């Protein structure tokens, strides 16, 4: 038996890549965010998994198939197996997302920028997201690339585990990411390897911790309004 799925399924069609199901980021229990109290409603027993949309299968629709084809073709030309670089492709709410293995991020980005059929000239920076429940991929860096030539937008997403928060820097490809990467480092502690001067940008230089991580408290004090105590925002009841 061969390990190659293309041979296994009898014809020469490559198996659909990224059969990975929805990405579970959290398991939610109960209904009103309160724990420990006596639950007489029965809602406390609710268990729901929260999952982000999983990989899509072709056809993706819109211009997405063309972009995906061009990108995969261009990567193959460079001697890179697309399946190694692109972990999965997600089409959700009319937007195309490539989940990229972090070691290939720079190559994918420069291909997207330089290939005449792709030409994503403008990077609109990086946004960090912290998913403490996404084990082994807690920290995500999300890039939105815009092609002025073709009028398209794609999203690149890379992830890094909490224990090794390193992502290669895109400053060499998109110099505009200089401040954006500093901001994401400042707030999420993602270390962008190869950045020319990765220092804090918003918080003071000697600040401890990374404020936008989910385990970092918001802080605040209770306020009194018309005789009633309103707790600090992060102490209020959460329905999520």
């Amino acid at each position, binding site marked *: 038996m061969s390990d190659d799925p293309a041979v296994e399924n009898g014809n020469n069609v490559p198996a659909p890549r990224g059969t990975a199901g929805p990405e579970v980021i959290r398991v939610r229990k109960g209904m009103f965010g309160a724990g420990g109290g006596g639950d007489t409603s029965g809602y406390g027993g609710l268990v729901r998994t929260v*999952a982000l949309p999983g990989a899509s299968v072709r056809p993706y629709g819109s211009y997405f198939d063309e972009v995906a084809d061009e990108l995969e073709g261009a990567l193959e030309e460079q001697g890179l197996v697309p399946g190694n670089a692109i972990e999965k492709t997600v089409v959700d709410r009319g937007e195309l997302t490539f989940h990229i293995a972090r070691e290939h991020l720079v190559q994918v980005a420069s291909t997207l920028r330089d290939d005449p059929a792709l030409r994503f000239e403008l990077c609109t920076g990086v946004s960090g997201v912290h998913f403490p429940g996404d084990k082994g991929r807690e920290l995500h860096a999300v890039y939105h690339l815009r092609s002025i030539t073709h009028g398209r937008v794609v999203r690149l997403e890379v992830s890094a585990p909490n224990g090794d928060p390193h992502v290669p820097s895109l400053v060499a490809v998109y110099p505009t990411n200089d401040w954006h990467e500093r901001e994401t480092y400042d707030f999420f502690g993602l270390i962008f390897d190869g950045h020319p001067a990765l220092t804090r940008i918003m918080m003071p230089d000697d600040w401890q911790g990374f*404020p936008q991580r989910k385990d970092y408290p918001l802080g605040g004090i209770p306020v009194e309004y018309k005789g009633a105590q309103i707790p600090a925002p992060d102490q209020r009841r959460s*329905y999520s």
Partner: protein
Amino acid sequence: MSTSNHASSNAASSRETTEGTVYTVTGGDWDEIVQSAARADDERIVVNMGPQHPSTHGVLRLILEIDGETVTEARCGIGYLHTGIEKNLEFRNWTQGTTFVTRMDYLTPFFNETAYCLGVEKLLGITDQIPDRATVLRVLLMELNRLSSHLVCIATGGMELGATTIMIYGFRDRELILDIFELITGLRMNHAFIRPGGLAQDLPPGAVDQLRDFVKTMKKNLPEYDKLATGNPIFKARMQDVGYLDLTGCMALGATGPILRSAGLPHDLRKSDPYCGYENYEFDVPTTESCDSYGRFLIRLEEMRQSLRIVEQCLERLEPGPVMVADKKIAWPAQLAMGPDGLGNSLDHIRTIMGTSMEALIHHFKLVTEGFRVPAGQAYAAVESPKGELGVHVVSDGGTRPYRVHFRDPSFTNLQAMAAMCEGGQVADVIVAVASIDPVMGGVDR
């Protein structure tokens, strides 16, 4: 140094550090500084401009290394106005989010609100269900806001050059727009008027008449800027070839908005990636080839004329109808009305929910305290703000609160170009270059 314990109150104090002598300038003591710097025989001088200098647009700190009058290196220090808005959003429900984002770039509140709401609506999948009237009013408010933002840019930019007349003109006309905002939303700034699903409420009586009067007045006032500044030789001498950034530089540094268009590329999201039905409006995207501050000034002037055109078209398109999405699971249940203690829930609504319908009361209570749930996923929405591409990355985990909201504020990105624009130029030109970027620190620092 001889100046350290000078008796005069105007004296510049100085102290020795490992990096050289540090002088603190308090005004009126420049001669002394120059003399002691000359005595020190150190040609490399680092000047800190700001963070509280009036011509740095708020709390922006410029760190300039100068050689005589020439800037050899320029860097920005930002973060003095960081208020953690993005973090705060994660602890409020989706509707309350507009109250925060409107305060980011406080000169373009409607753009922040619209971008955020477009993102949330994309996540909810209700982009097509937004009523026409709400969309037209969003466009109307955004274009008025573009006018007011450009007016502030031109006014403060002129003031920094010493042209106080243009400052008075700019703020005079902005006042007319703020009056309209106050009439429509109740507030001059920080409106939180555009909400996920539509608008907080409909136009008040008399608003359309006042808008028509405003268009008439503005058509009369706009040519005054031309007469006053466009051909003025001193104005041109200060602005032309200053703050130069060509197309390559713009693309590399991600500069958008008037900076990119001054390099000759007619990139405007309203044309290239339309939202809110901009494809149905007639307007032009002005460009210049000059790549300099003067070109950006001309572009802003022309964009104000185009915005006025769009405002007129909006007034023609306004049809009676709802301003909030029909889906009662998302639409804010309460109608607002003016009471003796200000704007609040209308008494009619309170009478209905308290007196006639238990279910309506429960519905109101659930939606106001808990909010609606947004399906898990992420979305990116971008609008063309007066400063460039304002992008919002919204992530939901299926809860009643945003999981993560990130604003790609154009001021933040454009400000990176400051070094490229200023290095090699004169100190006085730094002010002109920064003014032509039009950074608003509320947006840069968030």
